[in-house]
């Protein structure tokens, strides 16, 4: 995963060729950055007993505070003490709850049971006799096709606040294997998101997914997925899942002809256009809420969690924390709604994990559990899998907290007061915008890149935000904002001096 996989890992698909740092200087710089980040967000590692191949693929808190962990080989384990003192094998215990599952790639606790998406169904697991081992494996949602191609991953589920169950399905990418017993002829809903309202059957929601390995809700209960650069995807993306939209990957469109499809086939897809041009040109096309510029903010986003910890995780309440596979790191997303549609900015957040960050989960105490596994793809780090915990140390990093779009400008809000002299100096800032090719071919370079001239900088009276009045904002483009010259009131540079805003819509236009 460098892409994750298409595995969903992005899952990824085969591609992989991201470009993490290559030179010794780069390694030294990366280490220095990890050192700086760790002042604010501390990382701890859960030891794992020998013989337990704990490759996390799903994380869920149980009502009693224990943590359920789905693992890729098809089991669910329960960790008794995920929070609290520094974990050691003397003070934590793992017990096996379920086994024999087929590549579970998600986990949720919902009304008295654990739910996990296996290759061919969402299964509801319960222990009915009190021995803490599942004895009931009931089919909770199914009905999508499974060709046998390894990309046929199913991710989830997540439950939204109304109790609707959601899954995302990797598109097949390649041929269905033909072998004895493999008799199915069609494989509906590959590359779709699906939902199952309480008491109703599973139904398709949106089309155009590739390797949507991360699935989750934001603080409003809206449902999002991450997807992976590849065919039809110029770079990685965060998508708002909702009924009837087409996210961009064409393979799924074949199922628009099914009567249950809420998506109208957009017709032949134009070639030679950009993703910015695709908005409005392709009927039903919904651009990503956020593009993650490739190698600038990761190379393979996976699971993510919304920070609704009442500030126990620091100053980024209601933001999404996105596990990054290739770079073994976590990125951060701020979302806002413009004209009823989500868009927003992404930022690097914390690096230096032991392996690919595939799953994230906030514990009730406000620490973020990271489920890491890189088997089959690739990541930085020196372990093939790990379970770690990221805790806010109580110190506030100097960061761009949010970037908000305004009719004529961006408002950048910081986590602490800025030094007005550096913030007001236009030399402290550098802005540019770019888009991507919308194409069947794999990935895309950044195209149509242009500097965004800064006309004026206005600082808020409280010195917590700056408005950047720009010339030539381009809707549909990713706007990069670099603020290397800014200092905090205490003279500190930004921990991560850049952010990337996906300007699908300019407010008021």
């Amino acid at each position: 995963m460098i892409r994750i996989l298409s595995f969903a890992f992005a899952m990824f698909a085969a591609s992989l060729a991201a470009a993490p740092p290559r030179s010794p200087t780069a390694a030294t710089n990366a280490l220095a950055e990890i050192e700086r980040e760790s002042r604010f967000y501390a990382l701890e590692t859960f030891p794992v007993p020998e013989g337990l191949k704990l490759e996390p693929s799903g994380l869920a808190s149980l009502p009693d505070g224990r943590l359920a962990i789905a693992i890729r080989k098809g089991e669910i384990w329960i960790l008794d003490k995920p929070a609290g003192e520094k974990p050691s094998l003397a003070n934590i215990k793992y017990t096996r709850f379920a086994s024999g599952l087929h590549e579970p790639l998600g986990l949720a606790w919902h009304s008295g049971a654990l739910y996990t998406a296996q290759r061919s169904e969402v299964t509801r697991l319960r222990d009915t006799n009190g021995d803490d081992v599942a004895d009931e494996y009931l089919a909770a949602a199914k009905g999508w096709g499974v060709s046998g191609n390894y990309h046929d991953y199913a991710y989830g589920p997540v439950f939204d606040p109304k109790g609707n169950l959601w899954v995302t399905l990797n598109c097949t990418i390649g041929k269905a294997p033909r072998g004895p017993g493999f008799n199915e002829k069609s494989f509906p809903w590959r590359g779709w998101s699906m939902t199952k309202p309480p008491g109703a059957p599973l139904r398709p929601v949106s089309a155009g997914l590739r390797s949507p390995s991360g699935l989750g809700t934001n603080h409003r209960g809206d449902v999002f997925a991450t997807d992976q650069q590849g065919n039809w995807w110029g770079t990685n993306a965060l998508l708002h899942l909702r009924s009837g939209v087409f996210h961009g990957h064409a393979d799924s469109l074949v199922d628009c002809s099914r009567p249950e499809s809420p998506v109208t086939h957009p017709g032949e897809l134009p070639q030679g256009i950009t993703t910015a041009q695709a908005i409005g040109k392709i009927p039903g096309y919904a651009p990503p809420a956020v593009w993650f510029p490739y190698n600038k903010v990761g190379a393979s986003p996976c699971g993510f969690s919304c920070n609704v910890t009442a500030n126990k995780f620091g100053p980024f309440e209601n933001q999404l924390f996105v596990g990054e596979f290739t770079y073994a790191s976590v990125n951060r997303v701020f979302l806002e709604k413009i004209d009823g549609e989500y868009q927003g900015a992404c930022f690097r957040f914390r690096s230096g994990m032991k392996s690919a960050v595939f799953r994230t989960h906030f514990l009730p105490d406000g620490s973020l559990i990271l489920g890491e596994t890189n088997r089959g793809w690739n990541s930085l780090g020196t372990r093939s899998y790990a379970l770690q915990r990221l805790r806010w140390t109580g110190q506030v990093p100097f960061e761009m907290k949010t970037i908000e779009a305004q009719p004529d400008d961006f408002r950048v809000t910081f986590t602490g007061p800025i030094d007005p002299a550096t913030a007001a100096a236009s030399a402290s800032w550098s802005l540019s915008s770019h888009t991507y090719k919308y194409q069947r071919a794999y990935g895309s370079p950044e195209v149509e890149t242009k500097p965004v001239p800064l006309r004026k900088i206005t600082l808020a009276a409280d010195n917590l935000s700056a408005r950047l009045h720009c010339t030539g904002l381009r809707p549909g483009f990713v706007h990069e904002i670099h603020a290397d010259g800014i200092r905090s009131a205490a003279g500190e540079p930004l921990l991560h001096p850049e952010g990337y805003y996906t300007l699908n819509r300019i407010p008021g236009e």
Partner: protein
Amino acid sequence: MAESYGDFGNIPPRLDHVGRRLTREWLRKILVEGHGEVRPYLATRMPHYKIPVDELEALMNALEKADQRDPPIMIDVSGLLGHQRGHYGRDLMGTNGLNCITCHGLKGRRALGAPSIDLTHTVRRLRPGWFKEVLLEPKAVQPGTLMPPLFLNRPKAEQEIEQIWTYLKELDQRRLPNGLLRTGDFELVPAKGGKPIVFRTFLEGVGTHAIAVGYPPGTHLAFDSQSCQWALLWKGRFLDAMSTWDDRYATPAKPLSDDLYRFRRDKSDREFRGYRRTATGAPVFLYREGGVLVEDSIVPLPSGELQRSLKRGDRISRQSIHLHNREATFRDD
């Protein structure tokens, strides 16, 4: 096998450069605890010494100082560079790579040829700089060694050495290299007297919705959770889980037996509802057929014969299984 190595098979390793070769952890271990894990071919054993801690530390400091290399060998083992991936290292060590495993065993598995030093503990034992130094120029650094200069003229030697180091660091979590990996490393063996194994997988002969059931007496079954019917029965060994548990490509698992029997399938319309595991661990499959909930299980009787229990609504029936001409059929008892 010491004879294959000449003096190297009889004489303990030279102490030249030991201060930049071994980690402090390993030196301590050798001097205080003695050791014999890494050179299975060598009969000579290091005696144990009762060295006071301060003297031991002083000795190690002195060795480190005396054996410093100028300039030191630089190697990046941060895991923060793009090429430092454990699986590349695994490929290099295996039979399709540099074939290290011809001479070096790992994790208790012996080398394919005459075994030289076992590499399981390498990252605890060796300093990374030494590891690189010896791999780049084995004969110059350890005169008389049988280690061939495998990295000579390899343009990416430095990166490859870092990849091998990463793999050895992740060795406890990763598969053995090709050559040492054996069929059977991932075999599922239902334990005698234990519970049956229920295992969902892509399965040859059944399809993408298979649920395999392995019973300790050695007769195994697979249920197709798509069409909701029994699909396959076989006798002998159960399944190898490697393609399901450890492969990216999800190749279908195969029954580990040729003694296979197919159930005749029908096209009745059924809807899968899941399964429950009974106190003995046997799965009872649940599906709806014609509006009625069916509970369907096959379990071995004490006699070893299999018996199917079928509950439709309130009606319970039992069937035996008749095997003939590679086909399995149910007969009402």
